[in-house]
């Protein structure tokens, strides 16, 4: 599934990062690479952007950017 489809509290493993050059590289360089575990901390009050926790830090991404990232859900959130 896509990262943008995950709900608050969900956890997943990154499978693939798609998208164009600069954006994709930027996402990768912030540590969202294949095999990284990401946790959906929350969505902003206006439902966009998303706040993620990965590699022990907090990162925010827009929903449309998260839609470039394919993940495998590893844990269902409670929220």
């Amino acid at each position, binding site marked *: 599934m896509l990262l943008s489809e995950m709900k608050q509290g969900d956890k997943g493993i990154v499978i693939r990062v798609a998208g164009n050059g600069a954006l994709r590289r930027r996402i990768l*360089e*912030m*540590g969202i*690479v294949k095999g*990284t575990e990401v946790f959906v901390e929350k969505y902003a009050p206006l439902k966009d952007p998303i706040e993620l926790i990965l590699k*022990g830090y*907090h990162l925010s991404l827009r929903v449309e950017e998260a839609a470039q990232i394919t993940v495998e859900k590893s844990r269902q959130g409670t929220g």
Partner: protein
Amino acid sequence: MTDKKTITIALAGNPNSGKTTIFNNITGTRQKVGNWPGVTVEKKEGLIRKFGYDLKIVDLPGTYSLTPFSIEEIVARDFVLEESPDVIIDIIDASNLERSLYLATQLREIDSKVLFALNMADVARSNGTKIDAEMLSDLLAVPVVFTVGNKNEGIDNLLQEAIRLAETSPEEKEKRNVKYNKDIENAISKIQNLIEEKVKEKINYKSRWTAIKLLEDDKIVKERFAGKTGVAGEEILEETRTLRTYLLNHFDEDAEIVMTDDRFGFIAGIIKEVQTTTARERIDFSRNIDLVLTNRFIGFPIFIFFIWAMFQLTFTLGAYPMDWIESGVNLISLFAGNIVPESLLKDLLIDGIIGGVGSVIVFLPNILILFFCIALLEDTGYMARAAFLMDKIMHLIGLHGKSFIPMLMGFGCNVPAIMATRTLESEKDRILTILITPFMSCSAKLPVYIVLAGTFFTAKAGNVIFSLYLLGIVLSILSGRLFRSTLLKGVDAPFVMELPPYRVPMLKSLMIHMWDRSKMFLKKMGGVILVGSVIVWALSAFPKNIEYSVDYSFAMNRVNESFNMKIAAAGDEDKDALKKERIAAIIGLQKAMNAEKTEKSYMGRIGKGISPVFEPLGIDWRGSVSLLTGFFAKEIVVSTLGVLYSTEGPDDKDALKKALRSSGMTPLSALSMMVFVLLYLPCLAAILMIKKETASFKWTAFSIIYTTSVAWIVAFCVFQGGKLLGFS
């Protein structure tokens, strides 16, 4: 040691790694803030003497990598490559080791002498993360020093280690760099061999590093490489292209993507060895704060409250020192009035210089407090949350949530705000933000509102001023949308932003921040405003020999004589009343004379010349002149109004208000004037900054014309619309 040696130490690190704190601790107040050559990123340097060495500390911009996407990254990389600092201290946030190591591995690849400062390990430990520094040092062959920036711990140790590293010969240690996978490594060695065979002498970068960058298709390195190596280089570039195509087919990915993966793989290996995390999902302090501050329901109300509180603090708390400064300026001008003999020079000194600069320097407390608040928002980490909350809205205008930060600073002063657009990665975003930031009502416009709204809307002044700020915001949003769909079409920049942990800010760093920015205001004061005040004064003081419509001195004499006669004839009880009447009559004549003098001065003539343009806005010639002078700096609008309404001496605080009320200005025309001041062209300093930051004469001219046209149209609608609705 007698002969002093200068060692250049560059500080590198991720944003929010505590780099600035460490830099401030090392250099204290001995820092020089300037620009990196050619670009507009702030460069901080400090020169200190320690352990028998002169240490030149250069603070590189905070970056997550050295891939040249943003200006910051280009600047940081170029400094490391071209200036070859003796040592690079990579400041690593211990609670963020994995991500920090990405930049670290890139620094290692460049082959410069790197030293790790493992910062804030105490915080990491309390979060359940333990780092084996010795192992880390061994694995990467890099010395590691523990530091706690905000407690100033480990700094001396760090510098000693840096000096020691600078003094050792570079070949001493075998480098332990990222090993890429077999196919990539093969490609790297092929290119590296070619470089060493054919063009070794022509390039000054390390051959492995150059090979890696060429394979990554790094535009900047490719260009420089081609520029230096000519035909032989062309061959190598051709070979690289073939290798890249091969790798693309092999991995179904571009080489640089595979290499990024490999670097993180390498880092993951190191992390496994050196880091132990006990708590699996940390419930930390910062997350709990965020549960409230970015909460779905109360996040926005709190955000608005913070902004409101910031402005309250700025303007209510600031009012006290404002009073003190005002009295101080009055004292100076009284003192100068007593010791300087009557002359043109005296007029220049008191009315021009002291009056003009004095009327502006009173806003220093406001500006200091405002910048303090902004520094507080930045240093605590709330600024990133503001961007997080606002991104959706900013995205509607076609902007990045980060654009909110310069726009917010625009409320303080447009000059640093325009400078702050440098944090935006996309050129279009930067230009767009620069174009709409001037609609954020800067603090220099506030005095104008205070005087006009305070005079004409007394009890409702606060609401009127608040509405003005709101109007500015609305217009900037509309303009943003307009530009995004016309002049600056294109894909929005990605919103990939770290939300750093909340931190208790350090007073020292807040002070330095505040001072750096306020200094700009003071510099403006010494330069532009001083010159502006003198010009305004001169234009209103000359020509000296005016032909008055009435012979005022003759009229005054006559009034005097007639009253003298009346007083002589009157009884004792009437004498006092008559004396008062005489004084009133003479003051009336004097005021009329002053008003005529201003009217016939150069200033008055210019004002009258352009006043037809402002007439539909309900602004008279005095207003027109003030607006004109506001080009130097918005604060001058008030001092010009003061001169034009010839308020008698600075000792009468409410004189200007009285004069304004009796001048025929109405609440509606005052509102129209405030709207115009809110929107019209940015001040000279801001315009110069726009020119500098956009590096384009066209955008600068566009900004001037656009803002002024919008100002005229909106003020026209306010005044004429208000008249139609029956307001006055």
